[in-house]
Structures are given as structure tokens and as C-alpha cells.
């Protein structure tokens, strides 16, 4: 690691006040610390968000579940409120990385990083969640803008995410057996705003599949997905899977998610 200053503010206000040209926020650190260790990133100061109570915790109302940015994946996976309201989201959180990663990694850190193979973006987009930062609120589709890119301005901080309660939801992913990152993952949510299907792992960023949404809105069964093909153009291709294989997996994972609800 290159040298950096370490700061641990106690409030969002103090955290934002510490922001400078080369500062970086530290959430769970499961991506940032390896990146710093490899000297792929240099920071003048690391602003640790781990001691800010207002960023932590899960609360539920009749209509929505609100999760603080610094809430760890393991806490979301184990939360009775999340299980009761959005079991698909609890399942998603419980499949991220491994036990130790889930005990450190956070919702806010994951979405601010927006790794194309990260799981949370599918949950946010399918559930039509709203991201609250220290300055504004953003629908999740506007929050995620591209590979490792978000709408966050420099120094802007994710505070919490509000997930509207769906009628039903499910997540299925095909994991790289070693890294457990998704080769393709599909989150399906039957929401107040209609049927929503969001895909991670397959493309450079999270994307929706309107053809599947329309078909499932008419008939919520895995059968109706059989005739829908996903174009391989622009999908990710690497040593683990070709673009065509990822396109195929999107259909398989979507059917699996739907089948788990029917």
C-alpha cells in the first residue's frame, strides 16, 4: 500500500467535511483494501465509515425496508425484517462471496463500487429501490451508470437504500465456483410498479429484460421464458464464460428464479 492518512469520523456530516482531492471512503473494505494492497489505487486519506451509527441498521414499515449503507451482507441475510418482507433480497445477501466477506462487506460499499458481477445492483433495480445519499435521492436505475460507475459525485456518500416491498421476489445466480462472483444472476420482482427483471454478471452493468417482464406480467411461469432469447452482443466475455454462454445463462437463471416462486 502507498501511505495514507486514516480518518474515522463519527457522523455523515464530519465524513463529508473530510473529503479532499485524493480521499477515499472505506466501507467494508472487501474491494478497497485489496485494491490498495496491490497499489492499484492511491489515496491521500482513507475515511473509515465504520463508526457512523446513522449509516447502520435495518428498519421496516408496511410498505418498505430501509437498509443503512454500512449494514453488512450477513446482517441483511439474517434480518427477520428482510426475510419477512423481501425474502429474495435476504437470499441475495446470503450468497455474496463467503462467510468472512459477508461479515465485513456492506450494502453501500457494494453499490458504490458497482462491480459488474456484484449481486446487489440486480436487487436494487428489480425492486425499484431508491438510493439516498447525503445530498439527494436517486432511483436505482439512475444510480448505476456503467461498469464500476455510478451517479455519485466526488465526495457524495450513500446513506441508505429504501426497498419497496414487492408482492414476491426471487434471485438466482450461476456462480464462479472459486470466486463465487456471478457469471450471470437474475433478480425477478413482482412490484407495485409492474414486473421487473434485472440481470447482473452477464453485462458491463446491471440491465433489465423488458421481453421477460412483459411475458411474466401476462403469465408468471417459467414456461413463458423459454422462447425469449437474450442477445449476446455487448455481454461480458472472459476466461470463465463466453458472451453467448452468459446470454443463455440469463434465461436459465430467470427460469430458476421464477420456478422458486411458483
Amino acid at each position, binding site marked *: *500500500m502507498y*501511505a*495514507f*492518512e*486514516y480518518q*474515522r469520523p463519527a457522523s455523515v456530516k464530519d465524513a463529508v467535511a473530510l473529503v479532499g482531492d485524493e480521499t477515499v471512503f*472505506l466501507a467494508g*473494505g*472487501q474491494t478497497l*483494501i*485489496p485494491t*490498495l*494492497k496491490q497499489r492499484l489505487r492511491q489515496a491521500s486519506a*482513507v475515511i*473509515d465509515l*465504520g463508526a457512523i451509527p446513522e449509516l447502520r441498521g435495518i428498519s421496516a414499515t408496511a410498505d418498505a425496508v430501509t437498509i443503512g449503507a454500512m449494514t453488512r451482507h*450477513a446482517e441483511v441475510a439474517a434480518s427477520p425484517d428482510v426475510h419477512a418482507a423481501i425474502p429474495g433480497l435476504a437470499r441475495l445477501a446470503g450468497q455474496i*462471496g*463467503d*462467510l*468472512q*466477506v459477508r*461479515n*465485513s462487506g456492506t450494502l453501500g460499499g457494494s453499490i458504490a463500487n458497482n462491480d459488474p458481477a456484484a449481486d446487489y445492483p440486480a436487487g436494487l433495480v428489480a425492486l425499484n429501490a431508491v438510493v439516498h445519499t447525503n445530498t439527494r435521492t436517486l432511483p436505482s436505475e439512475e444510480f448505476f451508470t456503467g461498469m464500476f460507475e455510478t451517479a455519485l459525485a466526488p465526495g457524495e456518500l450513500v446513506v441508505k437504500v429504501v426497498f419497496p416491498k414487492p408482492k414476491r421476489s426471487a434471485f438466482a445466480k450461476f456462480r464462479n465456483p472459486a*470466486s*463465487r462472483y456471478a457469471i450471470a444472476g437474475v433478480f425477478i420482482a413482482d412490484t407495485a410498479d409492474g414486473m421487473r427483471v434485472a440481470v447482473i454478471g452477464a453485462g458491463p452493468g446491471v440491465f433489465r429484460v423488458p421481453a421477460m417482464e412483459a411475458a411474466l406480467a401476462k403469465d408468471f411461469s417459467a414456461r413463458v421464458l423459454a422462447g425469449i432469447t437474450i442477445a449476446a452482443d455487448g455481454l461480458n466475455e472472459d476466461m470463465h464464460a463466453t458472451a453467448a454462454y452468459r446470454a443463455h445463462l440469463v434465461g436459465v437463471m430467470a427460469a430458476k428464479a421464477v420456478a422458486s416462486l411458483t
Partner: protein
Amino acid sequence: MTKVSITVNGQAQTADLDPRTLLVEFLREHLRLTGTHVGCDTSQCGACTVHLDGRAVKACTLLAAQADGKSVTTIEGLARGDVLHPMQAAFREHHGLQCGFCTPGMVMTAVALVNGHEGPLSEHDIREGLDGNLCRCTGYQNIVRAIAAGAVGMKA
């Protein structure tokens, strides 16, 4: 420099550290608690697993400063004097190791897995729970057996 106060295996430890110091470096190089191993140093192998306020975490992927004010348990903190922790005893009994390099991390993950799980652990639960720990010798069979036995021992 950053001042940290961490309770390690029940003892208060205070140090003035370079902010870059990883928790595993603090444990091994400052406190000389070398039971916590560095295997891959890339967050994959889990040999560095310790408990942070009871949660299993990879000490190579955590700054020591992040543990300030918290409690850390390492493999050295499990036994009670000469009496092995039930999970350690089970690893010995069931030969849950060959070279032993991954063993401290395996045992720490196993203890956290049992503590965080209500009801009996199935073989599937154990294998899923060990996802973040790599062993290059055993093929895992005896590790899984040891953890199943250790879980029973811990509840006894």
C-alpha cells in the same frame, strides 16, 4: 501514525501504528501472535481468519485501525490453559489437517460457524460455511468431519 486500542484474546493492547498496518500484521508482527497465518494475502484463502467482535473476518483484508475499540480473538485465544477448545480437540481427534497451514483459519471459521448457527449443522452447511477457507492437502473430508464433531462438542 494512528493510535489503536484493541482487546486481543481478552487483553487490552494499545499501539501507535502506520495507518496502513493490516490487522494480521499487527497480530503477527507487533504482538507476535503468529498462529494467525497469511496464506494468499489476497482475501481468498482464509488462513488469516480471526474473530472481530465474534464475527469471522479475514485479517489480511482489514486495517488494524478498523478494529480500534473492538475485540479480536485469534487461534491462541481459544484454548483454556492446557485444555483445547472442543473444535481444536475435534480437529486433532479426526485428523482434520495435513500440513496444518490452513488449520488456524479453518478452526476459527468453524467456531464462528457453530456460534452463528441455530440447530445442528448439516454437512452442506459446513461445506458452504468453509467457502472462504482453502486447504490444499486434505480434500476437506476430515475437516468437515472434525467440524461436525467439534460442533457437537461445543454444544455439550
